[in-house]
């Protein structure tokens, strides 16, 4: 025990762990309310999706020849592969749901008002990134459902006046849904969107710490 304390003191002196703890976690909170935990829940789900996603990438192969087979391998032959993929699958649905309810809570309690407008705007970006994660991840199993869902969704994007055909080609990496579509959706799903999410989450959290949590409006508000 004494040795751990010594190690902690040594680290704290250099890293300022106590101040960090006070600034990030030991903040005053308006009257406790479960609706206020949805942001933390979204953050937890993001980390969970990140961890299980990293594990899935150990076996998953983003090529039309092997995508489906590699997922069959994860499901049937890898120890607890079904569990990791199951968590990633249901966690994705849950994350969209939790992020959405979080947004509704912020809207209903008018927490987006001054000085928290920027937190709201970044939250909109986070919502779009989350939906983008759902959209790109849906193609990766490369089964019939994935193929046709992406065919339809990219066709919808292609119906934009004037620039539609161009958007469609950018999304698909050509006119057809192909190996190029799969690899660019994979890159977006595991690199671009997570990087954007991580950056936006950082600013979002900074703003929450800076402004504190908004109190629930009372009867007079």
């Amino acid at each position: 025990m004494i040795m751990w304390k010594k190690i902690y003191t040594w680290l704290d002196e250099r890293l300022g762990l106590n101040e960090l703890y006070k600034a990030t976690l030991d903040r005053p909170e308006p009257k406790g309310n479960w609706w206020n935990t949805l942001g933390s829940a979204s953050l937890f789900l993001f980390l969970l999706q990140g961890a299980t996603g990293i594990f899935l990438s150990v076996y998953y192969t983003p090529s039309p020849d092997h995508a489906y087979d590699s997922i069959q391998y994860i499901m049937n032959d890898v120890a607890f592969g079904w569990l990791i993929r199951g968590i990633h699958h249901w966690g994705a649905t849950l994350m969209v749901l939790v992020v959405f309810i979080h947004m509704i809570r912020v809207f209903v309690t008018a927490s987006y008002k001054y000085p928290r407008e920027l937190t709201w705007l970044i939250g909109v970006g986070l919502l779009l990134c989350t939906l983008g994660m759902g959209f790109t991840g849906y193609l990766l199993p490369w089964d019939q459902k994935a193929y046709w869902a992406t065919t339809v969704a990219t066709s919808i994007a292609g119906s934009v006046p004037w620039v539609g055909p161009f958007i469609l080609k950018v999304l698909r990496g050509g006119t057809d849904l192909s190996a190029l579509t799969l690899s660019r959706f994979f890159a977006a799903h595991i690199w671009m969107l997570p990087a954007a999410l991580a950056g936006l989450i950082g600013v979002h959290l900074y703003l929450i710490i800076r402004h504190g949590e908004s109190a629930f409006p009372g009867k007079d508000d």
Partner: protein
Amino acid sequence: MAGSHHISRREFITLTTAAVGTVIGAVVGLPAIAYLIAPALKASTTDAWIPLGKLAAYELGKPTLVTFTRSKINGWEKTVNSYGVFVVRKSDTDAVVFSNKCTHLGCHVNWNPDKQEYICPCHDAQFGIDGNVLGGPPPRPLDRYSGDKVEIKDGTVLIHFLEG
């Protein structure tokens, strides 16, 4: 309250959080480790008895090339490799089988009936009908299947093949 069994609310929360956290960590962490090392835990059985056809069909004392394929599955990928062996019938009940892989660099040797030698096309190595090196760079005789590595069952020649 020194010496009493009373613990404060804060201590209780800390302890239960640590305990529940440890349990959750183990429930999540152990399957995660199993997931990562799963391919290493698979038993890999690569040996098999390969049938090479009826012994009576082989000419006495004449090396005859037989080819066969073996498939190997790694994860979701299946590779098919082909192998060749020379079957030499010794008698009505006995045969010796040689791998056609040159022991120098692994090229496939051919039987030359005029010289009564196996000749490797890559570096002109020569092996006798018994597989021994007659000339050239090979470090050892051709790999042979004899004794307990070859079996005649119901007139069919079988070899105990160890590779994929």
